[in-house]
């Protein structure tokens, strides 16, 4: 019988866990090493923020928080590659990508601190808010991409979902729509190994998560998500394809969730310490530090100074969050409708009167 179709999934990596380049031709952006250094500094900043956020939760100053520890290369790589006019549809952990787009740490803290104003964040006003219902954002991104295509705008919609979220009906539907309409759409599947307690191997019998895009006719690749060069290179390539009308992509970023799912979780109940220890050997920051120091682009002294600066910058954000007053009770009603119905206005008045009793 003839073979009617053949598929393969490429795995992209330039910088190994040992901090050495593996000899592949570097992507365009990496040819100027200063670009890599810039991204490294952002990765350190995100980690500094993340450490602080977990500490705030542990001391009762923040609600449940989803740490991004270990995802720094993937997040910074995605966010740094996008244009301002592109649309970003995150799940709820991709702070690094959002910081590159102008979202402030104080916005993240407001959201996890139980205040809706966090969702009205700084940065591109057309970007989507955090999306806790898993993977629904993928279809919103496909819809956004369809609007760009219908209006002939050179913009791309980028969404993120986890390895768990790649099982969701919405993810498959988004892949299908993006292929059917040849949309400027990129689905970033951030495979960190765990969906709360369920490991990657229990989600699907598929060999890679990237190959899910093949069924929809999208460009598919698997990338070392702890290698910033590979992440940024894959994003640059996919964005170019999408922006020039050549259709959408699925990129699987293989990384690892070094922390618990959220601060409400205790991963020791379901995964081995040995696995986590091994994952620390592959984490994104130390390999890049080794590389940059070997290349004489960075030093321990510079790092100490930059970390101090990160701490100072994060403290400004934390203080801004902590000083924010709770919204008045009527804020519960004020964004329900563009034109406030009389029925709701009456309850709003009741609520204000009750608070002043």
């Amino acid at each position: 019988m003839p073979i009617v179709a053949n598929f393969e999934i490429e795995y992209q990596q330039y910088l190994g866990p040992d901090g050495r380049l593996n000899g592949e031709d570097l992507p365009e952006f990496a040819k100027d090493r200063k670009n890599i250094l810039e991204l490294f500094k952002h990765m350190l900043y995100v980690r500094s923020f993340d450490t602080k956020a977990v500490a705030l939760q542990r001391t009762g100053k923040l609600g449940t928080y989803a740490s991004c520890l270990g995802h720094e290369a993937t997040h910074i790589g995605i966010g740094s590659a996008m244009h301002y006019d592109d649309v970003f549809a995150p799940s709820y952990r991709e702070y690094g990508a959002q910081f590159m787009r102008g979202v402030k740490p104080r916005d993240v803290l407001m959201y996890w601190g139980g205040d809706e104003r966090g969702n009205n964040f700084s940065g591109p006003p057309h970007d989507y808010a955090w999306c806790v219902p898993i993977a629904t954002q993928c279809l919103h991104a496909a819809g956004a991409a369809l609007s760009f295509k219908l209006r002939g705008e050179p913009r791309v919609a980028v969404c993120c979902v986890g390895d768990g979220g790649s099982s969701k009906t919405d993810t498959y539907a988004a892949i299908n729509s993006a292929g059917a309409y040849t949309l400027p759409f990129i689905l970033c599947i951030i495979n960190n190994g765990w969906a709360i307690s369920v490991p990657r191997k229990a989600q699907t019998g598929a060999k890679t998560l990237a190959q899910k895009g093949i069924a929809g006719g999208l460009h598919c690749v698997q990338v070392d998500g702890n290698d910033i060069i590979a992440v940024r290179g894959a994003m640059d390539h996919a964005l170019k394809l999408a922006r020039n009308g050549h259709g959408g992509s699925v990129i699987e970023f293989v990384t690892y969730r070094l922390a618990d799912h959220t601060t409400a979780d205790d991963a020791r109940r379901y995964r081995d310490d040995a696995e986590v220890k091994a994952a620390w050997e592959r984490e994104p920051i130390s390999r890049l530090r080794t590389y940059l120091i070997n290349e004489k682009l960075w030093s321990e002294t510079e790092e100490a100074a930059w970390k101090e600066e990160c701490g100072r910058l994060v403290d400004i954000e934390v203080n801004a969050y902590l000083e924010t007053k709770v919204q008045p009770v009527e804020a519960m009603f004020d964004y329900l409708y563009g034109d406030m119905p009389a029925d709701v206005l009456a309850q709003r008045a009741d609520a204000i009167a009750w608070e002043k009793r």
Partner: protein
Amino acid sequence: MAAITLIEAITQALAYEMKHDENVIVLGEDVGVNGGVFRATAGLQQIFGDQRVLDTPLDETTIAGLTVGLATQGMKPVAEAQFDGFMYPMVDHIICHAARMRYRTRGRLTCPMVLRVPWGGGIRAPEHHSEANESIFTNVPGLRVVMPSSPQRAYGLLLAAIRDPDPVIFFEPKRIYRQYKEEVPDDGEALPLDVCFVLRDGSDVTLVSWGSQIKETLETADALAKEGISAEVIDVACLKPLDFDTILESVKKTGRCVIVHEAAKTAGFGAEIAARLAEEALYDLHAPVERVTGYDTHIPLFRLEMKYLPSVEKILAAVKRALSV
């Protein structure tokens, strides 16, 4: 016998029924190795194995659809929706299939499933983790909708739900999962699914509530007792089908009724009770029926959520209004 919490009573009921009926299986996200994010299924996979306690892929459509398939082919699945706010993708399977499987096949296929749903607000949770969405389901014919508010009722009602021949949406008020402990004999005795529970006898006013708000409602009754006011407290643990007779009998006696629920006011389940009182008890009422509910808005994130939820003070004010007439 050690006293146990509401959530431990859930685990106890699941274990009892799995032990006595090999067709009962548990499925959902993180229910296996992890024992559930609230620990409702803790230890069950160790006892019954991974063929009876199944971790599903992360997809609520998958969970609901598989559950319908299992239930229609002789299994008795108890599925978990991890949080109230995550159950909306399941609605297609619940409404278009589970609720009407018996009806549309004229009894040829049936759907004896239970969907357990940690329910409600007040735990400082992230967005979409605090919904009081029971009235979406009480409006669906063919479903049973149950919500226990004590360890004993959780045990007895969950056993009844699993043994029932039709689909049951079993809401678990997560705010009171660990509120207090009581002794719950592990005797396999189910409670009836179609009765309200009178938690406290009284003669001056009837307080009607369910789920987490039973806590505030009972506290209100205590406060009223100190003022010499006698409140009857009814837990509508089985919302659908509704045992209206128990409520009617009480209101005929007291002449006053205050309904307390966490969900938004408009078309909340309190509206159904108030409407039936208007139909059947109008001439027995000494005062208009009062409702103490969430506002007609989304439950706010946690900085404001306690201002949204009913409180003892709000219930007391409503009782005083009813008594002033």
